[in-house]
């Protein structure tokens, strides 16, 4: 125990040095923020939330559809699948900490007519089990739903648990539908929509106490459809996942500065709603800013850029808000979201700078 405590202290010392070096403004006078590991909620203090929306939605779906199964690789509690396992213990398969087996067996169950929802963390599905998903699920076109927690930067645990490149990897996979929902309201609707789609699908999951935002916008999820949540002449933000939440918060902040921001929410990364993206970007005079909780390589940003180039649409400017091409730091999520420019305040700063024609540069 003593040795363990010693290691922990040394880590803390390294961490604080690191923060001082990289982000001097965050250091002095503030309470020390601790590492946001796997169970941290991304909800801001005081934000409306709903508990385990995926788990409850899957239970509701399973009541309607007897083919629905739940499977996990030792991460049931951490993907909200425990809700399903409690409701339908006989329809739940615990596969152990074996992600290759999880997805291969999911393919086998799907080939026998079942509809498995297989859960793990996004890093393990996209990185460790990629070939198994590619060959046994996507190539064989099996009706497996892959639901993965900790997408992008939603853990402060370090690169082992930060799935910065999952969208790029799954976008590149033929047959795979890729969905990056924003909040609890949307996750509840994505679950039955995935079931209605006959084929493989990947959903990035926000788990635990999940923020509730889109219900206030009269929003309905439709697979393959982007939705304009608000309009404005000064900038167009095209976003997915939790970055839509951040874009909406930033838009509220900027309204006080008389900057009116449009937000186009693109929850389905593949197939991409190219028509809606082109139509929104065609409005002249406003910069296009793509915001995603993902590396700037190969995700929504580059997908939008290619879409616009193919359509011959040249917006006033094109910017990306996303994670850098780097192994991200460990630490507290608020610190890290600030550091990498994906907190609401940082997003607002970037939009403001870019909507002013670039004066002052990016925040």
């Amino acid at each position, binding site marked *: 125990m003593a040795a363990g405590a010693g290691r922990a202290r040394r880590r803390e010392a390294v961490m604080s040095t690191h923060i001082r070096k990289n982000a001097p403004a965050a250091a002095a006078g503030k309470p020390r923020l601790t590492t946001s590991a796997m169970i941290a909620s991304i909800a801001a203090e005081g934000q409306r939330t709903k508990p385990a929306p995926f788990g409850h939605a899957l239970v509701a779906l399973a009541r309607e559809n007897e083919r629905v199964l739940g499977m996990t690789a030792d991460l049931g509690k951490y993907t909200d699948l425990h809700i399903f396992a409690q409701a339908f213990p006989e329809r739940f*398969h615990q*596969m*152990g900490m*074996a992600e*290759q*087996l999880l*997805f*291969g*067996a*999911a*393919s*086998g*169950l*799907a*080939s*026998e*007519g*079942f509809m*498995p929802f297989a859960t793990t963390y996004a890093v393990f599905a996209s990185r460790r089990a990629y*070939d*198994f998903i590619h*060959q*046994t699920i996507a*190539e*064989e*076109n099996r009706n497996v739903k892959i639901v993965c927690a900790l997408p992008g930067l939603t853990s402060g645990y370090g690169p082992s648990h930060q799935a910065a490149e999952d969208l790029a990897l799954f976008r590149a996979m033929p047959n795979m539908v890729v969905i990056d929902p924003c909040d609890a309201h949307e996750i509840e609707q994505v679950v039955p929509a995935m079931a209605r789609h006959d084929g493989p699908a990947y959903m990035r999951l926000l788990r635990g106490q999940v923020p509730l935002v889109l219900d206030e916008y009269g929003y309905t999820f439709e697979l393959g459809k982007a939705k304009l949540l608000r309009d404005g002449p000064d900038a167009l933000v095209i976003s997915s996942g939790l970055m839509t939440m951040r874009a909406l918060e930033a838009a509220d902040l900027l309204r006080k500065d008389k900057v009116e921001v449009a937000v186009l929410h693109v929850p389905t990364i593949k197939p991409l709603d190219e028509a809606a993206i082109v139509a929104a970007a065609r409005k002249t005079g406003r910069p296009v800013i793509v915001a995603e909780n993902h590396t700037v390589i190969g995700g929504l940003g580059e997908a939008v850029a290619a879409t616009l180039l193919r359509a011959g649409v040249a917006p006033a400017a094109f910017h990306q808000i996303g994670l850098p091409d780097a192994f991200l730091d460990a630490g507290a999520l608020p610190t890290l979201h600030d550091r990498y420019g994906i907190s609401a305040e940082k997003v607002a700063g970037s939009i403001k700078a870019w909507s002013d024609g670039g004066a002052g540069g990016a925040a």
Partner: protein
Amino acid sequence: MPMSQLGHNIPIPERARNIRRNALRMGEVQGQGYIAQALGIADVLAVAYFHAMTYRPEEPEWEDRDRFLLSNGHYAIALYAALIEAGIIPDAEIETYGSDDSRLPMSGMASYTPGMEMSGGSLGLGLSIAVGKCLGLKRKGSDRRVYTLFSDGELDEGSVWEAIMSAGHFKLDNLIAVVDVNNQQADGPSTSVLGFEPLPQKLEAFGWFVRRVDGNDIAAVQAAFDAARAQAGSGRPSMIVADTLMGKGVPFLEAREKNHFIRVDAHEWQLALAALDEGKPS
């Protein structure tokens, strides 16, 4: 009696010889391929398709069939040869083997070929899929079995051991796996590339019923399949460790040292077929 045998009185050794002939004829189309493996595993496939398994040739996706998963996709030439002998694929398609737009690609894929239940080729996938299918069959209350063939080289893959551990854990006594131990993989003898012996003891420690047999002794292979099928209700998955001789039945191919992927000269195909006919089915 398995459905496939109704109305047939062709002895298993004759079936095995026909499978070898079909494989050689496909090999001739490409002039090369995984011929030696096909000749080596022909006896096992003959027992699987003409002794052990239940299926309907005219209805490859019949719900009450036994499933067969080919994990080592490069053995497709061998499985096609068996599927042709079983009447699931027409004999006339032999000449399309490995050609553009053929239903018989060099590596087996589920969407191309009737009777091909998975896309192999990326080695180490089959047993995981088999675990899922076994769970699915039990869930449906079906008493059908899942047979899966994989190669000794695949024992290098960690995923194979994930599946082996889970099949024991889930008590999948509807699973019958066959591992082809021909001791040859891409870079050399399997036992020296990455040793896996003592294999039966390892498998038994994982809760499996194991029979190790000479995979070219048809009577022994039949007995092993029968013993494995008798495991229904035991809670134990079965593994048949089949030691096979690559090139079996064609002496000049048996003698080749590097026979993982072989080229055969044009004039040699007829020699190979003739050699096959000379060696009377035992």
